[in-house]
């Protein structure tokens, strides 16, 4: 068995090394409906249960019609499939497009925006950084998502806060277009695990 890097192989002691651990990267070689990361639940790097937060970095594009697609991020717990009930997700978002800004609430797992296939320039992809907080807690799971893309002379910058109303630990994460068009060939998504401080801190913490 390969131990996580924060465990000293010779002593078994926990150490504090790199706090960001690369779990997995998927780069699509063909158009694909969705990308799902699932916890390995084996105590190794891919086991989500050892992390405080997770970060998902997406560089993608969809095969939907139009010049952009809203992206869903759906979660699962207990080793089961992802929760596909829209009403279990709530969010607030704001975005800027050209000279206008928009804000609203939503009751589906939208997290941001990526370019879609009607763009004349096929090489345009969009970026999104997603922070998933305290993924192993008994809280509802809160997450923040920043995305941005150009769509041939127009574009978007987008901030969304999504809450999944489930208190189970996150064991799977799915990225999929809201309109169910494929994620395009070349889309790349990386998942990182964010460790807390596990040994005595190197700064003093006072709680009053």
């Amino acid at each position, binding site marked *: 068995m390969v131990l996580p890097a924060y465990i000293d192989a010779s002593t078994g002691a926990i150490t504090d090394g790199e706090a960001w651990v690369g779990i997995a990267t998927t780069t699509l070689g063909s158009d694909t409906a969705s990308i799902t990361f699932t916890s390995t639940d084996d105590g190794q790097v891919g086991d989500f249960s050892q992390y405080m937060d997770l970060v998902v970095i997406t560089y993608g594009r969809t095969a939907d019609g139009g010049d952009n697609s809203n992206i869903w991020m759906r979660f699962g717990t207990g080793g089961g499939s992802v929760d596909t009930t829209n009403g279990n997700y709530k*969010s*607030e978002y704001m975005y800027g497009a050209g000279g206008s800004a*928009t804000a609203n609430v939503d009751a589906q797992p939208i997290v941001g925006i990526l370019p879609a296939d009607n763009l004349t320039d096929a090489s345009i992809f969009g970026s999104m950084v997603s922070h998933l907080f305290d993924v192993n807690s008994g809280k*509802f799971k809160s997450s923040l998502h920043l995305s941005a893309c150009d769509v041939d002379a127009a574009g978007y910058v987008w901030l*969304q806060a999504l*809450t999944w109303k489930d208190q189970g630990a996150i064991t799977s994460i799915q990225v999929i277009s809201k309109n169910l068009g494929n994620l395009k060939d070349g889309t790349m998504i990386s998942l990182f695990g964010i460790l*807390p*401080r596990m040994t005595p801190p190197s700064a003093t913490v006072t*709680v009053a």
Partner: protein
Amino acid sequence: MAVIEAIATTYLEADAASVTFSSIPATYEHLQLRINARSVDTTQTTGAFIYLRFNGVSSAVYSRHFMTGYGTAEAGGGTAADSYIKPGVVNTALDDAAAYSGLVVDILDYAEDGNKNTTVMSHFGSGLGYNIVGLFSSMWDSTDDVTQIALTTYDDFARGSEFTLYGLKSS
């Protein structure tokens, strides 16, 4: 040496008025606070602000600009001189008991012992309860190194709130 190190984590086992990181090592280039928190307050219907001060300084030497989305309303603005930084807003006891808010707070060039002020960039939000997202920029009008970060909120932080301070370095 790691590129990103966790400096300290605290996970509140009881409600608490403040969380303070002090004696912060000057060995990193930037700091990042990752927070998942709520307040026990029952009066703030639009969420409870978090307040941040550096090195115990409470004079009006902090400025900020912000963009927020609150329900269907967008807003932007700024404050030239305030006695704290507001890096974001968290859920309160008015919201579902399991609703906590996430914040990412980047504190740039905090230990540059020279002529630059410390800049803070944060984004935050909750999709449940008060429904706000925001992107904030703040500045501490001081060239001192940051050695202490004190966090408070409107009323106490609720049990279960979590705070981790990370240090970032390139070599």
